[in-house]
């Protein structure tokens, strides 16, 4: 049993009041609108490039210009492929850029940033520039990443589809094309590899299935504050109406 003296009671009362004050201040602080955003970024060349521990690329510049009028305290977190969605679901980041997985059930901002077009990469000497000429695929062995959604033009052609398994299916497919083990490789977005900065693909050239594209979005965490979502979503729409990212990239 504990007996409290008058002094003990006074101290107890004081500490209780202090605790109460702390709780009120804490709650008050919690109810103020904190303007910070954690943005996870996954490398997506040539739009987003990781170099010397920095993120660069026109998409990064565009997003900066979109967000800067909102005066958010923005923290950029570089993430490896595949980690972005996990961090988003855990709430460790508020937004993920870019996001193009149509199979996942993830919320996104309404406006797509751009629309990559899938295509085929060939050794340059075997290049087929116009992929609507599907009769030219007859008996070509085309590597496809296992599970990747394949466009109807290729699926319905007489190409021999060769599934490539594993997380590195794309780089393996490209390597197999380069050594001539397969005739072509199906890439969901060949622009990511077929660009002038990529010295590793000098022997390849890619062409596109125009008319078969999916959007690339900014994904948002299920824990992102609704107010933040609305503010950023409206700002992106406004910016896209003035100049789309695709045009910004092309200029």
């Amino acid at each position, binding site marked *: 049993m504990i007996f409290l003296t008058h002094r003990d009671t006074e101290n107890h009362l004081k500490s209780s009041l202090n605790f109460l004050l702390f709780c009120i201040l804490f709650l008050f602080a919690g109810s103020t609108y904190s303007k910070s955003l954690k943005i996870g970024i996954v490398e997506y060349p040539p739009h987003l490039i990781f170099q010397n521990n920095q993120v660069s690329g026109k998409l990064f510049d565009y997003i900066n210009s979109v967000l800067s009028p909102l005066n958010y305290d923005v923290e950029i977190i570089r993430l490896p492929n595949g980690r972005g969605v996990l961090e988003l679901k855990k709430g460790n980041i508020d937004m993920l850029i870019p996001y193009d997985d149509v199979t996942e059930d993830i919320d996104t901002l309404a406006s*797509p940033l751009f*629309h990559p*077009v899938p295509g085929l990469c060939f050794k*340059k000497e075997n*290049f*087929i*520039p*116009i992929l*609507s*000429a599907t*009769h*030219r695929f007859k008996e070509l062995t085309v590597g496809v990443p296992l599970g990747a959604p394949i466009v109807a*033009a290729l699926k319905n052609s007489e190409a021999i589809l060769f599934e490539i398994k594993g997380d590195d299916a794309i780089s393996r497919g490209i390597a197999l094309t380069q050594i001539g083990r397969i005739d072509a490789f199906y890439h969901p977005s060949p*622009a990511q590899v*077929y*660009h*002038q900065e990529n010295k590793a693909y000098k022997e390849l*050239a890619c*062409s*596109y299935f*125009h*008319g078969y*594209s999916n*959007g690339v979005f900014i994904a948002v965490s299920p824990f992102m504050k609704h107010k933040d979502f609305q503010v950023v979503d409206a700002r992106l729409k406004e910016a896209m*109406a003035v*100049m*789309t990212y*695709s*045009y910004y*990239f*092309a*200029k």
Partner: protein
Amino acid sequence: MTFIFKSQPLINQRGGDKAVLFGDDFINNIKVTYRAKYGEEFPELSHFLKKMLLQAMVEVMEDNRVLFNDDEIGFKGIIPAIFAAQLAAKLSTKGVGLKIKFTRTKDDIRNVMNLPDEWEEMVMQKVINKPAVYFDNNGMLDGNPAYRQFTPLPMAAYCLKCHGSMEHNPLNFGKDKSQWTNIDMTGFEMENWTISDFGGGVSLSIEKSVLE
């Protein structure tokens, strides 16, 4: 389309400065080509759809930049019809209520993405023997009321390089007849059309709500 046709040597050449094909330079060239062809100033970009159309053209050219600058590839495949198809695909991603399609009667179409819809098929049957611009004030686009126009394209000599007969095929130039091919430079079988045949046309649709 005219500028893309005129630029074929530049597009397909190996090496050289191709800056005129991109960005603001490209837009300036479109304007110059328009003035030369129609003898009037390029239309004011007074509506966002006009701006969007020009922007989409620039984006299509940018999408092809790496290919244009790939010195190890000669024929790049960006002929006027392909440019038009890429532009149509680009516009369809923008959701702005504007659709452009380069189409022809369905039995003769090369790219299934350009197959005519019911309205286009009906209009072509009307104008195939007497080509004239057809305008419809009461059309529909994706279930919404729309203005629709079909502009027939006259067959030109350059169309026959792919769609004509073997003597028109540049791949056969300078070769003995026994070595001629009826496969054109894009990889399709030539159709044996003549200069008097129907050349298809450009179908343009704009949702009314966009203009109101």
